[in-house]
């Protein structure tokens, strides 16, 4: 045990209140934003602050277990954002109706698996393999990361469409909120994928 470890608490209990508070508060504020889009100028910044608490807590706990994982996940998240932005601007990826339908369906499927996993968890049942670090767990995580990344294309399309249609100014805040939700999801899924890969060693 090094000196530095002796002098640092690194206790998850220190940050759990922020994690839980941010998650619950963020969920409520996100719902308000979706139903009251013209409030986005106020609710989107509040959502960002609350999610910051969640990401700070989550990142710190992952970093303590797997040193260096956070900078990798941040780099990969922004790398993915700019790669897809270029692919979108160059016309390599087009948000056709079929593309959108596929991404929305896959996202809904993932949401169902997560909900089922959560519900079964209350009864002490866990869906085998998908949360583990075996090949199935890694492939599942990789699939979720790809779908989260493709959701970025839907956000780009939404922003471009809104600007082209002359949507009201507050929709800038709403579109930025949508992009932030996708980026946070992508970051968390990349973090989980990297953690699975590292716990194999």
């Amino acid at each position, binding site marked *: 045990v090094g000196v530095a470890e002796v002098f640092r608490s690194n206790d998850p209990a220190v940050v759990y209140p922020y994690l839980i508070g941010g998650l619950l508060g963020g969920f409520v504020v996100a719902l308000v934003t979706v139903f009251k889009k013209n409030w986005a100028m106020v609710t989107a910044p509040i959502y960002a*602050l609350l999610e*910051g*608490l969640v990401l700070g807590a989550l990142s*710190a706990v992952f970093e303590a277990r797997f040193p260096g994982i956070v900078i990798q996940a941040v780099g990969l998240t922004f790398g993915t954002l700019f790669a897809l932005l270029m692919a979108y601007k160059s016309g390599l990826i087009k948000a056709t109706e079929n593309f959108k339908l596929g991404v929305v369906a896959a996202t809904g499927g993932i949401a169902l698996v997560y909900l089922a996993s959560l519900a079964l968890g209350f009864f002490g049942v866990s869906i085998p393999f998908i949360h583990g670090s075996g090949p199935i767990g890694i492939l599942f995580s990789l699939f979720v990361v790809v779908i989260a990344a493709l959701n970025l294309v839907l956000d780009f399309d939404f922003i471009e469409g*809104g600007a082209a249609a002359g*949507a*009201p100014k507050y929709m800038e805040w709403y579109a930025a909120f949508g992009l932030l939700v996708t980026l946070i999801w992508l970051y968390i899924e990349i973090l989980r994928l990297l953690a699975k890969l590292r716990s194999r060693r």
Partner: protein
Amino acid sequence: MMRTANPTLNAGTFTGYARPYGTTEVMTIGGTVNKTGLLLLFCLLPAAWVWRKFFAPMIPPSFIPT
């Protein structure tokens, strides 16, 4: 604009209408990019704060002189 003989689609079809919102009140891509940057900053500040709380140096009770 494309030239056409169709009298209902001449160059004047889209003129004479006021936009429903003033030009400064319409959503733009640039404005959305700026706001996304702001939201990322709003996200980073509390994240860094919680991170520092987690990794803050702690003085073990036995080290505190009584």
